[in-house]
């Protein structure tokens, strides 16, 4: 037990950087869970695109009618008539459509002259089409009324158009058994991001121990100590295992604290925990690999960051796999994070516990374990060669 006890004494030296990783992750998780909607929306809600309307035709009732109608079909965000502020708003997508009603628009429209609402948009974007539809629908309806129904004043025309446009097509939501109405639940994000936290924490911890125990003089001293080297290795391995299990337990506990109710209700907690456990094993083996190559704290920090960031970005931890570039994803397949996220996504979309729907999840978990075994074996092979070079 000598080595096992020493393990956790050494671990204290890297406790700070592990705690920073854990703290950052939990901070982000709390932030995200406070932003995610707690109850799933089961009714259809039309998208309300954020629009900035600059009405330079202040006196026109028609222009005002258009603004009111846009206020009903989209979300109006008040902005001053200042190009710099409007450009900022569009770049950061506080608004996705800027509609400028030019001065004299209402009168020009009423007299049948050609006139148009000026728009500043993200070119060819879906939301711009959507808002265009509202504007065109309103003005075309007013035009037909003006030409054919004999209504004269702008106010009458606006009222007639609004009456025509009041009808809503009935929309039914069909959820096909998913509990979330197609929305990705908060805990799915939690477990996806936990891949980054697990990697960073476990690799930092495991490699710190490895660096300490692989220092040449210490290593040689341990070789001639009256403790069989087999039991040294076994106790170290037990330490790695306990440490990885501890990190995993903290993250699973965190998921229950933040999303307990919905997670339990979904009945998926077991599968998520199993998947993260497999990934914890992968992380421990990655830590083993990193630890047997780096020798100092400085290069360890670099290696940990490179490994975790590359694996997280290319595996789809930060950006969902569904929106990632296909060719990047095909490279990502060679990383365990890809299979972790695949299993994670599949669990989130599970509609029933049938063998058919569970098979891909267990398959992805097994592939992760395969990665763990492969990483472990490669490290053993390489470190054996290097160990002999000490002597």
């Amino acid at each position, binding site marked *: 037990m000598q080595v096992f006890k020493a393990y956790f004494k050494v671990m204290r030296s890297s406790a700070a950087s592990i705690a920073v990783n854990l703290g950052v992750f939990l901070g982000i998780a709390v932030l995200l869970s406070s932003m995610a909607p707690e109850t799933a929306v089961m009714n259809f809600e*039309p998208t309300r695109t954020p629009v900035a309307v600059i009405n330079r035709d202040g006196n026109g009732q028609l222009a005002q009618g258009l603004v009111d109608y846009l206020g009903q079909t989209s979300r109006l965000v008040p902005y001053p008539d200042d190009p710099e502020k409007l*450009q900022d708003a569009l770049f950061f997508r506080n608004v996705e459509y800027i509609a400028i009603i030019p001065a004299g628009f209402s009168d020009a429209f009423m007299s049948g002259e050609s006139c148009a609402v000026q728009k500043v948009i993200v070119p060819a974007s879906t939301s711009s089409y*959507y808002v*265009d539809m509202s504007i065109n629908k309103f003005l075309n309806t007013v035009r*037909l009324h003006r030409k054919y129904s004999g209504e004269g004043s702008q106010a009458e025309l606006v009222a007639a158009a609004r009456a025509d446009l009041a009808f809503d097509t009935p929309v039914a939501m069909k959820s096909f058994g998913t509990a979330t109405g197609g929305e990705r639940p908060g805990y799915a994000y939690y477990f996806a991001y936990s891949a980054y936290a697990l990697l960073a924490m476990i690799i930092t911890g495991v490699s710190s121990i490895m660096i300490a125990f692989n220092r040449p003089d210490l290593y040689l001293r341990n070789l001639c100590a009256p403790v069989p080297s087999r039991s040294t290795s076994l106790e170290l391995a037990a330490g790695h295992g306990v440490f990885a299990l501890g990190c995993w337990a903290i993250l699973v506990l965190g998921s229950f604290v933040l999303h307990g109710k919905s997670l339990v209700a979904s009945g998926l907690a077991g599968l998520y925990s199993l998947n993260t456990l497999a990934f914890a094993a992968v992380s421990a083996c990655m830590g083993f690999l990193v630890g047997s190559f780096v020798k100092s704290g400085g*290069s360890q920090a670099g290696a940990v960051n490179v490994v975790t*960031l590359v694996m997280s970005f290319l595996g789809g931890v930060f950006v969902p796999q569904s929106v990632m570039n296909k060719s990047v994803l095909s490279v990502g397949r060679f990383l365990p994070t890809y299979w972790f996220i695949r299993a994670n996504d599949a669990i989130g979309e599970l509609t029933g516990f049938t063998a058919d729907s569970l098979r891909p999840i267990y398959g992805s978990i097994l592939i992760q374990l395969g990665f763990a075994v492969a990483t472990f074996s490669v490290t053993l092979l390489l470190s054996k060669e290097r160990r002999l070079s000490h002597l």
Partner: protein
Amino acid sequence: MFMHVFSYRLKCLLRDRETVFWTLIFTLLLATLYYFAFGHLTGEQERFDPVRTAVVDSPAYRGDVRFQQVLASLSEPGENQLLELTVADEQQAERMLENGSVAGMITVGESIGLVVKQSGIEQSILKAILDEYAHTTKTVVGILAKNAGAAQQLISELGDRKGYTEQISFSDAVPDTILGFFYALIAMACMYSGFWGLRNAIDVQADLSARGARRSVAPIHKLGVVLADAAAALAVSFAEVLILIAYLAFVLRINFGNQIGYVLLTCFVGCIAGVSFGGFIGTVVRGNEGVKTGILIGASMTMSFLAGLMWVGIKDIIARKAPVLSYINPAALISDAFYSLYIFDSHRRFFVNIGMLCLISAIMCAASFMRLRRERYASV
């Protein structure tokens, strides 16, 4: 003598592999990962594609010729195509809806309805199309009730719907939000120049390093040493940021606009701010090297975060809710300078950013100078 100190300092800094890794290799790696993970996103995610839709093939649908015509004209290939239509029986349509190969399923019975799996913009467009069909019908019926004679003209005019919007632009720049990440990344690289400034500060103070002690007793004016060191740090960090900019512009094809001179000016001023920030931490903050490095990393990451490194929107939120913070955060000033160059036609905001950066750098240099000058040690 200046050149002598400068050239040796340059060698000394360049041999610090670890700092070269963090200030150059790490930023290049992060740029590559950003590019692969979401470099393509704005274009692909926001671009309009015809909405994939299923319509249930029922007797009522087959009987409604006018509705069929409208759907057919909306799904005609071309610039104005709104729908990608599949006519299917109910079960097949439901299957398509379930596996996500269509966004919605149109049902025609006594009235026209829509079935969807979730709320979203594609589903909203579908609803808007169906709404419009119902609204137009209502308009026509209403008008004909008052003015039956207009029937012929009215029907012919329905096919000729006018577009009432005209696209204009404040400037030629496409508002691509993803650029914000890369501008914040350059800001981070500039702030990481602080590592060089910190090294300089440690290597010149006798109570912090053996090298500082040796240099303190060297027969050369301290100001000369400090200036030569600063010039070397600036040269290294500017070269590194130039490599990053070249990589972003020529390999990853990130758009910086076409004002190369101003882009380089921003990089240079950003590096000055970074180096003086490192020097400031190294001289003004008390404590050993570990503490100072920790503070430098923490501060530069916080500043980069507020400039939009992890979440682009935060920069704009700060600028609107707490504008003072964005004027005193060098990282936000650097990324806003790049943004202003890209998006605006005028240079007013750009020069405000550059001016603030110069001011902040001057204050930090002055503080470091006050701290360093006439420093005496009882025993070295």
